[in-house]
């Protein structure tokens, strides 16, 4: 369980996963933030006012599926590194998963990286679509990985280093 091993359960995830219909329309943010803590930078970060928190700063964030356009701005802003963007429309068989990354070396676009799930288990090698810096002050990178659709809700990180070139 999340509270004693750090791994969110299917039940936890069910609370934040967008509907399949919404997922098939394009990229959307998923806040894997399940505990009521005094924190709210995600709310201010979203230029589209898609993240809300009611009644106060201790509530967990909610993403409005109609307002979120999957722009990824919030991913690097969240201090808990808990926001991911999933795009199920990447291609016929693949999805694009964006996650925050704070290790060196940072992979380059086009390289293959070893994807990890929420338990840190290796899920295979996948191409890096983007590696974008959150800025000089923010210092968090946003990595986008292209994974088979069935792994879109599994892969949430990559192993730092050992990246391979090419396909």
């Amino acid at each position, binding site marked *: 369980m*999340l*509270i*004693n*091993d*750090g*791994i*969110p359960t299917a039940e936890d995830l069910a609370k934040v996963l967008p509907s399949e219909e919404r997922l098939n329309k394009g990229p959307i943010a998923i806040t*894997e*933030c*399940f*505990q*009521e*803590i*005094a*924190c*709210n*930078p995600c709310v*201010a*970060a979203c230029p589209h006012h898609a993240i809300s928190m009611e009644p*106060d*700063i*201790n509530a967990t964030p909610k993403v409005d599926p109609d307002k979120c356009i999957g722009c990824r701005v919030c991913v690097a*802003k*969240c*201090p*808990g*590194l*808990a926001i991911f963007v999933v795009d199920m429309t990447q291609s016929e068989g693949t999805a694009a998963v964006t996650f925050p990354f*704070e*290790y*060196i070396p940072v992979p380059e676009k086009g390289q293959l990286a070893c994807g*990890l*799930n*929420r*338990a*840190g*288990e290796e899920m295979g090698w996948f191409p890096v679509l983007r590696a974008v810096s959150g800025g000089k*002050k923010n*210092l*968090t990178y946003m990595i986008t990985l292209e994974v088979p659709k069935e792994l879109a809700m599994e892969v*949430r*990180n990559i*192993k730092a280093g050992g990246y391979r070139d090419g396909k």
Partner: protein
Amino acid sequence: MIRDVEVLVIGGGPAGLCAAKAAADSGAHVLLLERDDTPGGQLVKQTHKFFGSERQFAGTRGFQIGEMLVDEINAHENIELMTDATVLGMYEDGIVTVLKDEKHLKLRPVKTIIATGAAEKFLTFPNNDLPGIYGAGAVQTLMNVGGVKPADKVVMVGAGNIGLIVSYQMLQAGVEVECVVEALPNIGGFLVHASKLRRAGVPILTRWTVKEAYGNGKLEGVILCQLDDKWQQIPGTEKDVPCDTLCLAVGLTPLAELAWQAGARCEYIRELSGHVPICDENLMTTVEGLYCAGDVSGIEEASSAMVEGRLAGYAVAVALGYDVENAQKEVDAAKAELVELRSGPMGGKIRAGIAKVEQKRGEA
């Protein structure tokens, strides 16, 4: 010679920096003393992004918050900052003694704010004196201030925020983190920190503890074992984990000795993690003119330490008659901010601690 000081702030962490600024912004003259060679307190080594709201700089990294606060202090004409200055004693006649450059200074402040923060706790188990066993704070300082990779293979004890964050920062520094062990049945730190470690492959073992450490002249490994629900080690669950470093993050305890020495009433309050001064709602101790802010009056967070600093600083300004109307408004605003920060489920412990402080105050 005794130097007269209007407002003395002891400790240059987030609480002390914010206290100094609040009092000085209102017009008071402040002397801020820090025993380290750089001000910033715990913030200096916090390379992760902070939580809280915008008012407490959430989303900004701890050391960057520290730099911002220190820049404001340095630019302030009403504040004198003295580093490498350790307060040694506070006496009942109001005299404060300081060690600065091997010299003894004597100060006579009108108002004093103690913001000395906290010290790390240790753990007892066989061979806990082997080289290679450190407090998490020391490891974090080595790594994030000194730029030294502190270990090759580490076991972390404690899944509170400090244990989780320092484990993550060791991963970032290229250290292999074998596991985090926690005696409690649940992870005490923020679950987002736990999940971040877990998806990097670090197991978090709740209801486990260190049975003993071993090594010839230095740490070579630890024996971990599982605990039952009565906190007894379960025979047969021992696990031998080779490592060169064992890192302890088993809690902090307030550094309240100065308040104690000055004659302020202190009480042991478990929820606040130790002996703490009994303060009123303006953070004044039972000694007139002596205030406490930040971890020294109960272990909490940098966000609340900053707000407490502001509260104490403005309360001192009101007491001294500086910019009273505005300062009083700021005092009220800070109180409301603290209530909000502490209102969630994670604030339960601190709320219970504060309720006990209020109860003790009533008993006096």
